[in-house]
């Protein structure tokens, strides 16, 4: 099944006063100098979905800042025309109007209940330069990366995480008065943490398995195979024990940790501390110790593996909407062989891809297989 975004229209979005871009369905390459608005265009697309887009922006900071001779409305909108394999078109739109931060979502001109409704039509998987340091940073960034992927497969993961977080904060607050606390209430909160925590860990474990399966579909000679492991007690225990047992053990652990958690002012153990461990399999080396280029290759490998596994599920009618890949500054740090191979892999997935880069030469290997645009000062023109 092929779905393609055939047209993108922006109004007062970031650097764009207006843009109307027709696409022919080939992979899209956007090149131009820094600050030209390449990433803004990818971000605009990522807004045509639930959530706050690939930069996690606030709704009111997306509106174009007008100039005195060119006032902006204060609102912004993005719309995309999606064409399915029968040639049927659906117009998806989102934005906010001036002086309001209430998000408006429209599907074929009719108001939709909210941006979540867009998930039935389109889903995005993105990779941005901000993620380049993923393996060098603290565990929290990697955990968020893992949880975001997990949620794309299993929406209930978000709910479990929110329940866990809430119960944990209530418990931490209660422990401020340790040992003069309502122990029954502590016990109830710990039971909730154990239930939600084990559900979270199970969903993450499932995600790690999907990544491993997805990675097998990618040529190891080009993108190094990533070993994916989860560094977390619950995730580890779930591999050999029943969920019920792990839940009980975690609850007992929380109970035992009360005095220490009270001293620390936070919960010292639990799935909120899990880390995603990635290794360069062939080298047997932690990703953190690999070169910048290898780290980028590992990261691209993971994102592609995730896209592959999402895509496999999407071939099933019960699964989600078509996927679109947004790859910002994708060619940076990659040698020519890897770049060429990346393009082959992307083409093989059959997914619609949007890529950016500063230098058109980086995408030379694509030739006419891609639709290329030059971005400069808020205007986008088709190249050659």
């Amino acid at each position, binding site marked *: 099944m092929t779905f393609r975004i055939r047209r993108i229209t922006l109004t007062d979005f970031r650097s764009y006063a207006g843009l109307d871009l027709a696409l022919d369905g080939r992979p899209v390459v956007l090149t131009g100098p820094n600050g030209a608005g390449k990433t803004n265009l990818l971000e605009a697309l990522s807004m045509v979905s639930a959530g706050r887009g690939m930069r996690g922006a606030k709704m009111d900071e997306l509106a174009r800042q007008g100039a005195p001779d060119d006032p902006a409305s204060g609102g912004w909108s993005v719309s995309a025309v999606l064409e399915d394999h029968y040639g049927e078109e659906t117009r998806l739109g989102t934005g906010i109007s001036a002086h309001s931060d209430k998000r408006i979502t429209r599907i074929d001109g009719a108001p939709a209940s909210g941006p979540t409704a867009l998930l039935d039509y389109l889903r995005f998987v993105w990779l941005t330069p901000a993620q380049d340091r993923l393996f060098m940073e603290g565990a929290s960034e990697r955990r968020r990366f893992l949880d975001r992927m997990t949620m794309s497969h299993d*929406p*209930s993961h978000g*709910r479990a995480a*929110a*329940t866990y977080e*809430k*119960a944990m*904060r*209530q*418990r931490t*607050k*209660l422990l401020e008065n340790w040992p003069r606390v*309502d122990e*029954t*209430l502590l*016990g*109830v*909160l710990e*039971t*909730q943490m154990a239930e939600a925590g084990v559900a979270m860990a199970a969903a993450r474990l499932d995600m790690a398995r999907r990544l491993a399966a997805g990675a097998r579909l990618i040529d190891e000679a080009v993108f190094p195979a990533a070993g994916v492991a989860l560094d977390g007690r619950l995730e580890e225990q779930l591999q050999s024990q029943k969920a019920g047992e792990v839940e009980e053990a975690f609850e007992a652990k929380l109970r035992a940790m009360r005095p220490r958690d009270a001293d620390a002012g936070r919960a010292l153990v639990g799935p909120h501390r899990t880390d995603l461990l990635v290794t360069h399999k062939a080298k047997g080396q932690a990703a953190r110790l690999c070169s910048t280029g290898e780290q980028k290759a590992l990261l691209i490998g993971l994102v592609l593996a995730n896209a592959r596994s999402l895509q496999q599920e999407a071939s099933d009618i019960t699964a989600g909407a078509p996927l679109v890949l947004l790859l910002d500054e994708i060619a940076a740090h990659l040698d020519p062989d890897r770049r060429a191979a990346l393009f082959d892999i992307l083409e093989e997935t059959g997914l619609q891809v949007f890529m950016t880069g500063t230098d058109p030469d980086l995408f030379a290997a694509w030739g006419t297989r891609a639709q290329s645009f030059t971005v400069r000062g808020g205007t986008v023109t088709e190249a050659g």
Partner: protein
Amino acid sequence: MPRTPAGPELDRLISLLAKLPGLGPRSAKRAALHLLKKRDGLMAPLAVALKEAAEKVTACSICGNWDSSDPCQICADEDRETGVICVVQEVADLWALERSGAHKGKYHVLGGVISPLDGVGADDLNIASLAQRASAGGVSEIVLALSATVDGQTTAHYLVERLEGLTVDITRLSHGVPVGGELDYLDEGTLAAAMKSRHKA
């Protein structure tokens, strides 16, 4: 906010009205002006009604419901089942259940949900009086009718713990498919809950 160019009486009225749920400074001004315009038809009777309600309406000493009689009309009603007590968060929830006519027994109003983050502990709610009622005999079932939010469920679990050991059945409202709702529009969590609480047809 700049003060209203009027006397302190009007200014105070507006600032008090602005504290009502659903009203802000702007709508409070509009309400105040409207009241002045309908001085005899609305403002004076409203003042009397406010005064009377403030003097006479109190929380029922048994269940916590608001009424001008204590015990409240529901607690005093001899036609209602005394063996079943339905626990709700607020009086608004009691009214909703009464509107449905689904509960023929008595109520117990907690006055909120447990949330240490908001400084609300078990002692701040009418929980001790519930335990007392439940253990006093003559009560066979306690129905927990609390919101399906994280805090609502924390409170429900807490009540189950606190009431453990008593010879009463503790039940809770089902979570699942709303009446008139289409199945394929439900989110996964609701569907899973509905499946879990299914019963023999």
